């Protein structure tokens, strides 16, 4: 009975929230804007809230008592399974192109790009504990460095890749210097501002970046000097291996390039974690004052974290540019930074496997959702749904936002929330999530 009352109250609140914005729609009329009534849509939304609240309440009544131990058991299971999941994922990643489906390879490439970005940002946020909301800036620096070097000086992808990384790392250190003294949320807002500054400059410096129109004709990567060209002339892959030129060859090649880059990121960060530098990062995350007292050079530690994290962002950006062959400032908005940060946090801050899983869930899920919604829209050809069918693809980001909230509420510490110490005296043992100190961010 209380559940019913509670659900009724929720529906009442929902009515207050949605009656003005869903029930009354501003449409353009002949003399300016007009209001249009949509009572059915409002009723549907309010009804959904009512039902949703009822379901949540009935589930909560059953599981509340058992939730804490089961959560811990789940966490242990996840970290145990991690031993098998990692090689499994790796094999799956290597084997994916053999499916031959262009759709899956493209999706895999996208997911791997985000995994790489996630691992790069993980160095800054997960290991060094510096909250960075402007990571997309380094992605943009990498992409534009490659695009500009390639289109202006005719350099190839493999020459530009290290240059893009170096330039992005330079940008990272440049951002790092002024924010050395800031912590927590001040750092967050400055990095966010930095990301916006880069984007505004990219839009407005038309003579260099071609402004909002972006840069076109970015060259594709080559395999030891062999181009993936469709005409199959001398010096192309098709000519060298004596096969028919096909688009799929280039797509598979790009897939393996990003797989290699992502694995490089993973390998480097795993190695760095064991070096004094990596240990200093993790110490810095836990307690900056203690670090200073123990003689760790906080300035260099922070700058290297920014620099190395940014470098991997720059690599990913160069890859993005060569894959798309076209970049514009629109690809480097705050929403990208937010997605990557969400991947890192949902992955459980510091866990390499967690970041990969989170990227698969979020980016894969987002793309699956896109297909599902357009499929659903095609199915609804009855006039009853005429208003909603064409709008369905727009619901994608709405669902994404809600999913972020729900995932955080359900698993605030991320998917893989325990921590494995980088250094241990005898035997490496996982630290339960409850024992991990609250990160200062």
């Amino acid at each position: 009975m209380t559940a019913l009352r509670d659900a009724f109250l929720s529906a009442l609140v929902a009515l207050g929230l949605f009656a003005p914005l869903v029930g009354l729609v501003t449409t353009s009329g002949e003399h300016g804007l007009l209001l249009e009534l949509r009572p059915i849509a409002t009723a549907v939304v309010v009804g959904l809230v009512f039902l949703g609240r009822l379901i949540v309440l009935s589930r909560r009544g059953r599981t509340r008592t058992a939730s804490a131990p089961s959560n811990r058991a789940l966490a242990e299971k996840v970290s145990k399974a991690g031993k098998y999941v990692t090689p499994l994922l790796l094999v799956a990643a290597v084997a994916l192109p053999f499916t031959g489906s262009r759709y899956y390879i493209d999706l895999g490439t996208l997911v791997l790009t985000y995994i790489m970005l996630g691992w790069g940002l993980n160095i800054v946020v997960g290991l060094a504990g510096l909250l960075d909301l402007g990571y997309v800036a380094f992605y943009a620096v990498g992409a534009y460095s490659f695009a500009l070097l390639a289109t202006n000086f005719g350099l190839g992808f493999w020459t530009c890749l290290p240059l893009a990384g170096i330039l992005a790392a330079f940008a990272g250190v440049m951002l790092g210097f002024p924010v050395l003294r800031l912590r927590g949320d001040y750092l967050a807002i400055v990095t966010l501002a930095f990301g916006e500054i880069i984007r505004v400059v990219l839009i407005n410096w038309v003579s260099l970046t071609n402004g909002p129109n972006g840069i076109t004709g970015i060259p594709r990567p080559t395999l030891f000097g062999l181009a993936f060209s469709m005409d199959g002339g001398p010096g192309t892959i098709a000519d060298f291996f004596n096969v028919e030129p096909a688009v799929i060859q280039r797509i598979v090649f790009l897939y393996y390039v990003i797989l290699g880059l992502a694995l490089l990121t993973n390998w480097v960060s795993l190695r760095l974690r064991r070096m004094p530098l990596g240990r200093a990062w993790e110490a810095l995350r836990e307690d900056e004052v203690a670090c200073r007292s123990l003689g760790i050079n906080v300035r260099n530690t922070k700058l290297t974290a920014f620099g190395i994290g940014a470098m991997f962002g720059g690599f990913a950006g160069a890859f993005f540019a060569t894959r798309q062959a076209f970049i514009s400032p629109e690809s480097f908005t705050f929403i990208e930074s937010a997605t990557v940060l969400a991947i890192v946090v949902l992955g459980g801050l510091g866990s390499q496997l967690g970041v990969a899983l989170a990227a698969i869930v979020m980016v894969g899920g987002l793309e699956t959702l896109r297909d599902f919604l357009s499929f659903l829209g095609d199915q609804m050809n009855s006039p009853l749904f005429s208003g909603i069918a064409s709008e369905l693809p727009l619901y994608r980001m709405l669902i994404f936002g809600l999913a972020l909230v729900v995932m955080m509420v359900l698993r605030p510490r991320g998917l893989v929330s325990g921590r494995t110490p980088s250094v241990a005296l005898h035997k490496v043992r996982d630290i339960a999530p409850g024992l991990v100190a609250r990160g200062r961010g």
Partner: protein
Amino acid sequence: MAYALQQLINGVTLGMIYGLIAVGYTMVYGIIGMINFAHGDVFMVGSFLSLIALLGLAALGITSVPLALALTLIFAAAIAALYGWTIERVAYRPLRGSFRLAPLISAIGMSITLQNFVQVSQGARVKPIEAIIPGGIQIMDQGGFAVRLSWMQIAIVVITMTILGIFTWLVTKTPLGRTMRACEQDLKMASLLGIDTDRTISLTFVIGAALAAVAGFLFLLYYGVIDFYIGFIAGVKAFTAAVLGGIGSLPGAVLGGLLIGLIEVFWSAYFSVEYKDVAAFGILIAVLIFMPTGILGRAEVEKV
């Protein structure tokens, strides 16, 4: 001189709007120490609510401008307050006391949700309205350049001052304000002394959202055109204002808002319109380097 005076008027008007939004950021940050990323989008929702209310009142045949404006303001503030309350309840309260980045991600999710919700429900097109309070007065004329002060700008300054006056009274003189200040100083101690902290935090969100809705209402009246994306940039600027003024400090938020408004307007007038955001953020970075606690903020003392 005349040109500069005109820019000063425009800058103060814009700064008032930023200040109103910044108060919401700084209050929430002061009490629970999180960046309420969805706050800028509550501002956007507030301006949409105002638009709908204005159109609805026009359809109902209420033609008296002051009455229509007052009703719109109350309606937008009330519904936006409900939004603020719901957001806190759904997205932040379950994460209270949890690990620090979780509420931030949840807030970013809420911001994405609100933006896309308005885009889906109200359409992605910009919504223009006609000027409701047209006209103004000419203050001075210098070499053919007329300095104008529109009625709208006067209205914005008057409304903002009134609202901020009520708000200051609320915070400094009422029991509610006392509990809010207590929670800001020490949340745990306040709860030990019998203050219902959950209720206080909820009310903070409600008040912040209502102020943001007032800002949204003024934004709609001043610029006459809104879309679902205005919340992000305005939110970032307002947060910048809050940080500039010293986060956690209420007068600081208004001061920061005024400064950001003035910087933006003067930069646009004398240098380049395209880089006005760069100027605002650049000043933020500069201030934080030399004055990490902002203009009126207290230095954060950490006990080890």
